[in-house]
């Protein structure tokens, strides 16, 4: 009896800890963003609409499933640039808007024959199966890929790409909404988190930012 009360208290504590941790994570993300934003103006030779990390951190321990039901690890990102949007398909406003921006960006970069791919990572695996994701991204561009995974593995990925999302505890109504940071993340050919673009994102800005980042990366 005592044990179960303890467990309950622990669970309550864990829930509130979770909330505070999330808040801290949010603030930290903004803080880091702001710091890099300010820092970059002083040190980097160029300015971008998002922010580029001075020391990109390599992805590690990534274990997701792509739209063809194949495993997606950090190695999958090696050799090309990848723009990733972290979202979900039920979302009617922000996510299709971001996918449209990625499609426009793809069109702008394709002309210059850039080695770039576009990907949607869904944080809503209950509703977003690999098959559903494949159809979804195909609607925007047949070359786009997608991925999702177990809740734990999505969390690992999202933390590394500095994305925040909040699935509602009660998902009994199938029409639930997911809060998310709605950012676009740029992974470099070394599979490191290179830059982050927070909303509102504009394809022409992302394209010119990418040219600068790519030039510096190769230079």
């Amino acid at each position, binding site marked *: 009896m005592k044990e179960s009360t303890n467990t309950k208290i622990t669970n309550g504590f864990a829930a509130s800890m979770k909330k505070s941790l999330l*808040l801290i994570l*949010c*603030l930290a*993300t*903004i803080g880091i*963003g702001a710091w890099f934003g300010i820092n970059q103006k002083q040190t980097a030779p160029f300015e971008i609409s998002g922010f580029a990390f001075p020391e990109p951190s390599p992805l590690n321990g990534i274990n997701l499933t792509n739209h063809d039901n194949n495993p997606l690890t950090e190695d999958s990102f090696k050799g090309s640039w990848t723009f990733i949007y972290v979202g979900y*398909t*039920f*979302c*009617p*406003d*922000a996510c*299709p*808007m971001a996918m*449209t*921006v990625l499609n*426009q960006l793809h069109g702008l970069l394709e002309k210059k024959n850039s080695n770039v791919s576009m990907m949607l990572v869904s944080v809503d695996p209950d509703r977003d199966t690999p098959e*559903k994701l494949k*159809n*979804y991204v*195909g*609607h*925007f561009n047949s070359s786009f890929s997608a991925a999702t995974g177990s809740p734990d593995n999505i969390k690992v990925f999202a933390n590394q790409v500095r994305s*925040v*999302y*909040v699935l509602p505890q009660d998902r009994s109504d199938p*029409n639930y*909404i997911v*809060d*998310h*940071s*709605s950012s676009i993340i740029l992974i470099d050919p070394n599979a490191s988190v290179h830059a982050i673009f*927070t*909303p*509102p*994102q*504009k*394809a022409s800005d992302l394209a010119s930012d990418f040219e600068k980042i790519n030039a510096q990366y190769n230079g």
Partner: protein
Amino acid sequence: MPKLASHIKLLSFFFTCLLSAAYAQADDHKHGVLITNSWARATPPNITTSAIYLTIKNPTQNNLVVTGVRSPISKRIELHKTKINDGVMQMRKIDQIEISANSVFELKPHGTHVMIFDLQTALKTGDELSIELILKDSSPISVQVPVALQAIDDDQGHKHDHHQPDTDNEHQLKHGEKEHDKNIQHEHK
């Protein structure tokens, strides 16, 4: 029922006539509420949600309150607002949209929009949705909304990237602004 409907129609016609007359007398406003730039987002396969965006011009001397949207396309259509809170994008249901007298209000991506749930059929580019904006103090406004992949701007006459930060959906009508409207989809008198 058809009799009642025709009575209501007749009655609303009568009142709108009265209102128009009142506006015409109050000042030079001959136009009523205008809906422009409307579009609904085309849906990917097996996706049951979409959004409708449009611009509401209220050149009248009264505030206009939209309390909902209905359409045969779905039983669940809600007014929603997307906003960024502590770096996290949140979309929430809102009860109404208020458009001040002599103002324009834009429903646009990353801002206030109409959310459609439980779509039974896909919305394809080129389709048109019949919707009604439900008003607090007046008869509904009917709008034919084209389905598109991205924003349609009647003023520009072409599709473009309608992407601006959602800070201010409403602005005051500039003097003479209403004279420039082209391709007005609906005029509510």
